[in-house]
């Protein structure tokens, strides 16, 4: 297998079969360092399955996922995170019982102290450095004035922004976004896109799964089109947009 020098994530010949269903067939994907790589496709194309294989939630039937020269297959979610991979879920996964600030401080602890470390001697209130870091991350996503709220009381759009702050504070090398604007109002979608554009310039590699064409074409450097568990087209946004196979399979000529 020939790697280009700046490939940070390589999904190599991955197949995933569920009973009687070939969910992913012969997936080969190279994500370049610092780029935003979008994976699009109609419902049931296997997008979520692919993402779950990448983060180790599902084991591939064959093939491997390689991140930064290390095989991710078979690793646990917390190990994959500690290697520098953060994930935004389709439904925001936050800590509803904690305050907004604590929500962001928690991943900062994971980044600083590793997967397991008991800190009992110093009260949380004395962790001034981490608190400042968390406040910066919240200011970054425009939520600093909400830092003392209970996270459960936030709107869906704010929960998504909070989840992004929780991922960004870890300064991950790879950020995976699973339909970051799913189920959002137009307004929330637009603020999320603005936010993603803002962090795009930071050189963080991103893999984004998305339904919303508006989101994809305004963010992606490269697009892979998934249909029926196979990659049917791949390339720059403009090339993909013009590809007749893609129009047939997915866009339905609407664009």
């Amino acid at each position: 297998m020939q790697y280009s020098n700046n490939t940070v994530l390589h999904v190599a010949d991955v197949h995933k079969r569920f009973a009687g269903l070939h969910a992913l067939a012969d997936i080969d994907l190279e994500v370049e360092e610092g780029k935003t790589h979008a994976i699009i496709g109609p419902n049931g194309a296997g997008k979520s399955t692919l993402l779950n294989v990448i983060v180790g939630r599902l084991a591939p039937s064959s093939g491997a996922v390689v991140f930064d020269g290390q095989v991710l297959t078979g690793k646990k979610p917390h190990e994959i995170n500690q290697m520098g991979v953060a994930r935004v879920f389709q439904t925001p996964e936050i800590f509803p019982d904690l305050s907004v600030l604590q929500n962001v401080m928690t991943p900062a602890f994971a980044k600083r102290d590793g997967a397991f470390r008991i800190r009992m001697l110093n009260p949380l209130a004395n962790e001034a450095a981490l608190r400042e870091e968390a406040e910066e991350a919240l200011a970054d996503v425009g939520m600093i004035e909400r830092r003392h709220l209970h996270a459960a009381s936030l709107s869906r759009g704010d929960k998504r922004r909070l989840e992004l702050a929780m991922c960004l504070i870890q300064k991950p090398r790879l950020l995976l976004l699973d339909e970051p604007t799913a189920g959002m109002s137009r307004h929330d979608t637009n603020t999320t896109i603005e936010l993603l554009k803002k962090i795009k310039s930071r050189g963080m590699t991103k893999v984004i799964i998305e339904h919303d064409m508006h989101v994809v074409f305004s963010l992606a450097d490269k697009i892979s089109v998934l249909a029926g568990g196979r990659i049917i087209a791949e390339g720059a946004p403009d090339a993909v947009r013009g590809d007749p196979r893609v129009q047939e399979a997915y866009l339905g000529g609407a664009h």
Partner: protein
Amino acid sequence: MNVLRLPRQDVILFAVFAIVVLTMPIWLTPFGAAYPGLMQKFAIFAIFAVGFNILFGLTGYLSFGHAAFLGVGSYTAVWSFKLFTMDAIPALIFAVLMSGVFALGIGFVSLRRSGIYFAILTLAFAQMSYNLAYSVLTPITNGETALQLTNNDPRVIDMMFMERTAGLPSPSIFGQPLGGIGGFYLCAVLLLVAFFIAQKVFASPFGMMLRAIKSNQTRMSYTGFNTRPYALTAFVISGMYAGLAGGLLAVTDPLAGAERMEWTASGEVVLMTILGGVGTLVGPVIGAWLIKYLENIFSAFNEGMLHATFSWLPDGVEDIVVAVTSKFVGEGWHLTLGLVFVLIVVFLPGGIMEGVRRIRSAVANRRDNRRTRFSTSAAE
């Protein structure tokens, strides 16, 4: 020193709590509860509940087998009396360590599951311990007769310093006997230590991790935390609290029976925690005190006393009232407990502490309303 440092409101809470606990013999007198045996129970079961809450209140893992650690603590303490010395300190240290070892083993297996499966696993382990104590382990536990001190115990350390006396020895601390009020103050001081450690856990980053595990375990692992060792640590800490409580039960009454490990005892600490308020610092203590107080009152009632209480009613009515109420007292006091529990869970799911919070915010609201009314009338 970092070890002793706490946020200010916690320091105030601790000071108030210490005063309340240490002045128990005074303020419990009007309730007729200021005798050492009962106050010892108040302190011991408060320790048990505070420790249980570190697991259940923070991580959300509901253990139905914590009485096993209480029993292990009691047996270990009595064995320490029998083999080494009647001094309470080594007995309590052994009790805490031994229950910690048991908690490590049981927790390691049980924490592979969560929710109802975790609860069932802990319950199974506790019932297993209970049945083992009655059957194959009788050489260690003395089965149904319960483990007791005898005159022939080796007590190797004590025997180096003193002659064997005729009567059974009783537990002591630094050579001072621990009868009555002395026993209470030992339990009270240990309750304060236990409460302080719980405050440290609640205020620390570790406590926040445990809350985060309760809140969203999926996010926790995708955030880079290995959640199981965190939960296991909480499990072991709460098991050690239970062991300390069990050890103190043996110190105040040097005897250990297997009934201490029965599932009803495990259920009782769950009730105490929920009744007082899960996840709060003070709630489990209040729950423990309330249940032990009610148990003391209601289980002591008998039909004769009921007749005396209701003697002002007409004869026929009195008999009916006594016949009904007698089901709720004495042996049947668990019926009262059940009713109280149902009422609390239905109307105050956050326990007594939620009631306190509601009253406090209602009072604050009324004060605010009055203030705004004054200011508007002043403006007119």
